[in-house]
């Protein structure tokens, strides 16, 4: 079962919402569909499911409706139409008291500008959800301290938020959400107000925590690099509609439309693309029990100087070159066992990012071997392949058309 399901969700501000929903139904752009109506469509026909334990990123520029969308997921905003189910419970029809209960138990939120209460100490802020839940003071403090420990801020517990830097304040915001102990975390542009270096640091911290805690996180951002770094899956929003949902790699390699393609044009591909996405099929692979004659024939036919050798269960063992094959032939050995070298080839896993491949490629005498989780050879990456992948990544410089201008104009802006 999914942790959170959204179906045909609409949010219309203004009057005559029904008419607006009807007109938007045929997929026309919102400006055109709503011409003449005094209504604004913030979210149009959103559909997605968030799986337990994943980081689901909603990415879009300001005005794309992402902040409105996330506020409907915990009922801070009432949807105009459609359904939001949290853990199987339909949220849109809940009575206020039941909605508050659901927020206490299932879903907490981290805000763009931290939204800490300036008149309460750090630990009082971190324990806010527990206070709302009516826990006794001592237990509240204990659990709030646990949460502060996770974000490394215990020594600041009795300071006021004002004493903390922006990055630290947002860690308190994160601790407050973690202390609540809910399965689902909503993060609304949570890191957008931070300096790039601090942002990177807190992203790492979030990923570390996530590896440990396995929360279900819905993360809103306008920063594509952040989306690609954090998101298990990414939903791209534009003008109120979700235009594509997929993994970072899917969105990079197979953008659903020109808008997404332009959006992803300036992302650092080397960090997103993995060894698996640039590797080639290995030319010559032989079992270790093959004889040197077979190896010699293979080398001759492919006009290469190296053969990749696999053992039992197709596990990768190493390589043999012409020299070893000739030696084996001269010495009259029936198979390649004993001649296989592990010195000349570096191995990497399928999910190694391209940026991390350069060192291996430079040091590997032959194309780098790409192995799966059971050490089976699934591909090779010759230097030239890596270089052309890099060329493809850097050649897509921002072009001065409308989409890019829009992107530049909103860079660093907070919604």
């Amino acid at each position, binding site marked *: 079962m999914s942790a959170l399901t959204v179906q045909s969700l609409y949010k219309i501000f203004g009057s005559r919402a029904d008419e607006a929903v009807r007109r938007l139904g045929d997929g026309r752009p919102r400006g055109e569909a709503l011409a003449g109506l005094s209504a604004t469509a913030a979210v149009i026909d959103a559909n997605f499911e968030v799986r337990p334990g994943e980081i689901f990123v909603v990415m879009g520029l300001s005005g794309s409706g992402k902040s409105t969308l996330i506020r409907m997921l*915990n009922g801070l905003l009432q949807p105009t139409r459609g359904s939001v189910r949290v853990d199987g419970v339909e949220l849109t029809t809940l009575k206020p008291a039941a909605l508050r209960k659901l*927020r206490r138990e299932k879903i907490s939120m981290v*805000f763009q500008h931290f939204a800490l209460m300036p008149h309460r100490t750090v630990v009082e802020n971190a324990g806010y959800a527990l206070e*709302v839940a009516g826990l006794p003071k001592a237990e509240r403090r204990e659990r709030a301290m646990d949460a502060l420990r996770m974000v490394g801020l215990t020594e600041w517990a009795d300071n*006021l938020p004002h004493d903390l830097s922006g990055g630290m304040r947002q860690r308190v915001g994160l601790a407050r959400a973690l202390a609540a102990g809910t399965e689902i975390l909503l993060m609304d542009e949570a890191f957008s107000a931070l300096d790039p270096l601090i942002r990177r640091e807190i992203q790492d911290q979030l990923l570390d925590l996530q590896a440990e805690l396995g929360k279900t996180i819905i993360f809103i951002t306008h920063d594509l690099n952040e989306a690609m770094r954090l998101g298990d899956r990414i939903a791209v929003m534009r003008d109120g509609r979700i235009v594509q949902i997929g993994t970072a790699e899917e969105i990079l390699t197979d953008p659903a439309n020109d808008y997404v393609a332009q959006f992803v044009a300036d992302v650092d591909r080397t960090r997103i693309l993995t060894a698996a996405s640039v590797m080639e099929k290995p030319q010559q692979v032989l079992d270790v029990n093959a004889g040197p004659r077979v190896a010699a024939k293979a080398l001759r036919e492919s006009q290469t100087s190296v053969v990749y050798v696999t053992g039992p269960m197709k596990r990768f063992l190493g390589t043999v070159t012409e020299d070893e094959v000739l030696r084996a032939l001269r010495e009259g050995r029936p198979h390649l066992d004993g001649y296989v070298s592990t010195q000349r080839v570096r191995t990497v896993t399928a999910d190694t990012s391209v940026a991390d491949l350069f060192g291996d490629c430079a040091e590997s005498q032959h194309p780098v071997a790409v192995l799966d989780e059971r050490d089976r050879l699934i591909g090779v990456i010759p230097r030239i392949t890596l270089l052309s992948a890099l060329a493809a990544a850097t050649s897509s410089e921002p072009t001065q058309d409308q989409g890019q201008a829009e992107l530049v104009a909103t860079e660093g802006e907070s919604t």
Partner: protein
Amino acid sequence: MSLTQSPLDSWLPRVPLGTWTESAVDWATGALGPFFDGVATVVEALVRPLNDLLTGVPAVVVVLVLAGLGWWLRGWKFALGTAIGLGLVAGMPYWEETMSTLAQVLVASTLALLMAIPLGVLVAENKRASAVARPVLDLMQTMPAFVYLIPAIFFFGIGTVPGVLATLVFSMPPGVRLTELGLRQVDKEIVQAAESFGAPPWMVLLRTKLPLALPTIMTGVNQVIMLALSMVVIAGMVGAGGLGDVIMFALSQVEVGSGFEGGIAVVILAVVLDRLTDSAGDRLPSARAQRLARQAA
């Protein structure tokens, strides 16, 4: 009244607003008589003991207590200033009048705040209440202060009670407005954060909105007290006693000397009350937090 009234103007209907008001007040005096008597009794019961207390103890004690309060809230310089200022008043012939003015101001502004702050909360939380309250508050604030005295006399006769009640009505609006403003200015994201963790409305109001709005509300408290002080002097016209009487008498007799003495006593009282309530607001933890936050920004 112009003698040469244009014939066009004769088309305008005569609106006897004054007559209506008179009959409304007449009716209220009769029908609500017991209610007004009750109100009068309560106000009387509040003002008299306080008045007796302030005029009963030696002036030196009052001066020392207020100076001590000033020391605690603002430091020794202000304490010294308070002592000198009030000492001057005590040295003039109108100490008792000053103290009854103080008693009236304290009662009127306390009652005004007891109504103004809850009303301000209601108005901030409810758009419809805000739409109704706004014109009423405008009316209360812009109506010339003297006008309040007329119905007050009708309902309560002459004396301290009509003075205090006219003062109450006149000084209430800034309390309502600044409470509303303070609550509306609370960071929306912080309110959403409180709501997003499942806090019920009363909890959001009491533990988040009100503490964060408190500095602005305290400005309202300060304004209410200042307005009450200015009105209490006007209330001297209905025989409320205190410094108002002194000034009205000086005016009617054209006595510059006693008029100035009464005026100076009002000024000193105003400065002391203003600075004391102002710094009481600044000492709140939420005010401190916000001041620090502003410095950081």
